[in-house]
């Protein structure tokens, strides 16, 4: 086991522990659980960053990789997404006293990193000639940042649906008073998606540019491409609902969840369908 995988496994365990602490806080309202969540998450981020740096160093040891990032493999992409997800939560939501949302967001960070360390090989090797492209380097990085943001948004959407049904029930439990207000959750969901959407579009555009440069055409009918466009369309519908049609509350929250489901299908489902994006099936 290399140093980087020890660090990354450590980060995985800390993220998982932080997710459990967040769930504990949700149900017990013991402030210690919330503090434990932040501490565990903070150390998890630190280990993850060290692990990432170690992997980067190994990757850059190949001179031809010097100007690129190790994100074009399944492991690299998932690990980076998890890092972005946990960091976004740590610096935005937890700071904005929305730590209670950790219960809805952190499990994604733990699962994504868990999938990386358990399913994919962290090995680094010299990038194949066609992969040595700036476009292709930005492509997964931007997409993983967007996906991390969408994961955060879906956690917020789940919290919103819980809060909405609490108030609708006329028998709110204590959870109702501890979750952020409907308006805050709605605004946060919209804000996160509005910020992530341009990143998603830019990331997809990078992919298309690279496809054009390498394969000579933009559209290759690759299943992952199709799925990614569906994701973009779903979030487009969300933005239209939220900002143009004046829809708030439950329905846009459902769309946000559908969008994230589409992200998951795009990211993992394409592995089953093979095609040019397959990381697990094809050569890693």
């Amino acid at each position, binding site marked *: 086991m290399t140093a980087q995988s020890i660090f990354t496994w450590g980060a995985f365990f800390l993220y998982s522990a932080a997710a459990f602490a967040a769930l504990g806080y949700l149900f017990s*309202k*013991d*402030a210690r659980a919330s503090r434990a969540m932040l501490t565990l998450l903070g150390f998890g981020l630190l280990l993850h960053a060290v692990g990432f740096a170690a992997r980067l160093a190994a990757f850059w040891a190949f001179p031809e990789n010097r100007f690129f990032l190790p994100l074009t493999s399944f492991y690299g992409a998932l690990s980076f997404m998890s890092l972005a997800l946990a960091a976004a939560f740590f610096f935005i939501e937890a700071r904005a006293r929305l730590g209670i949302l950790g219960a809805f967001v952190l499990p994604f960070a733990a699962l994504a990193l868990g999938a990386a360390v358990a399913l994919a090989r962290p090995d680094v090797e010299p990038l194949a000639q066609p992969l040595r492209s700036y476009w292709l380097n930005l492509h997964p990085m931007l997409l993983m940042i967007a996906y991390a943001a969408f994961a955060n948004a879906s956690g917020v959407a789940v919290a919103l649906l819980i*809060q909405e049904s*609490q*108030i*609708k029930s*006329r*028998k*709110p439990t*204590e959870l*109702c*008073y501890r*979750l*952020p*207000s*409907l*308006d*805050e959750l709605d605004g946060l969901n919209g804000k996160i998606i509005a910020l992530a959407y341009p990143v998603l579009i830019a990331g997809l555009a990078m992919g298309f540019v690279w496809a054009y440069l390498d394969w000579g055409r933009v559209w290759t009918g690759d299943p992952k491409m199709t799925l990614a466009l569906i994701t973009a369309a779903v979030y487009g519908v969300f933005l239209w609902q939220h900002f143009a*049609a*004046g*829809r*708030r*509350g*439950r*329905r846009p929250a459902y769309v946000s969840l559908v969008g994230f489901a589409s992200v998951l299908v795009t990211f993992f489902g394409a592995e089953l369908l093979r095609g040019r994006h397959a990381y697990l099936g094809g050569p890693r």
Partner: protein
Amino acid sequence: VKLLQLGWSHRCAASAAREALAAVPVERVLAELKARGVSEAVAVSTCNRFELYAASSSDAPPERESLLEALAELAGAELAAEAEAREDARAVAHLFSVASGLDSLVVGETEILGQVKTAYEAAKASGLTGKRLNVLFQRALYVGKKVRSETGVAAGAMSVPSVAIQLAESIFGKLEGKSALVLGAGAMAELAAKRLVARGIGRLTVANRTWERAYGLAARFSGEAVRWEEFPEELVRADVLIASTGAPSAVVTRAMVERALAKRGGRSLFLIDIAMPRDVEESVHALDGVFLYRLEDLESIVAKNMSSRAEAMAAARAIVEEKTGEFDAWARSLRSGRELSLRHARGSAA
């Protein structure tokens, strides 16, 4: 005896002594005790209780009789018969319960914590607190906060208006910048308007069948009055609606709310119907983004909060007991000359 507590609280039947003591400014009490050579004392004086905590630094215990005598002189009343007295660990446990709101008339109320803090600060400013009382009162404030944040004793509003405000905040967050529409101008409407304004509602509009009364109520809370016929238009702007008219049938219909919703840009609408017979058609609750609470809904939440507070008492008492044990271990270690840290004491007491 190292620590002595004398108290006159809402628990004792006769209130004459308590009232007499409450009339004496705390500064005078402290000055008098200091003049009589008391080294450490804190007096907690609120409308529901008067309590004195005294500690001695030497081996000589604080003298109950001389303290009572001093207080009786200040109050100009006979006090001894009604006084509760506690010593050492029992006095510590009592102070922790008081700070936690467990000894209050409304269990879990938070005001007492501030009053304990003020009492401690006054004594500290008079130079009447030494190590023991400093640590004791800082501990009491800590325990009071801990009990409230970790148990349900302070959770849940205990009255219909507070429950309504809490729900409004669960929907909108802060109420500043939100607008409220009050239908009716009776006593209930007035009470509701008062609570909303106190909570910082941005805009208050009143509609009533009798224009003069709407105008009068609006004027009292620097709100705005609208003609009765115009209130459906106001529904477009309002975030919270409080209905308490004496109308014989519903005045806010589903069709009316649906028309308003189309122009609201998806903003939530919180309707509170405290009228009997009802002012708002029940079916509006089924609309997306509309939340209708009737008086009995609010009342049942209050009832539930009250019973869960009672349940939380046991957990709160356990915290008080645990922290009393810690403090006691620390206080005893002080006497033996090998002072434990309170953290350490926590370990040995746990």
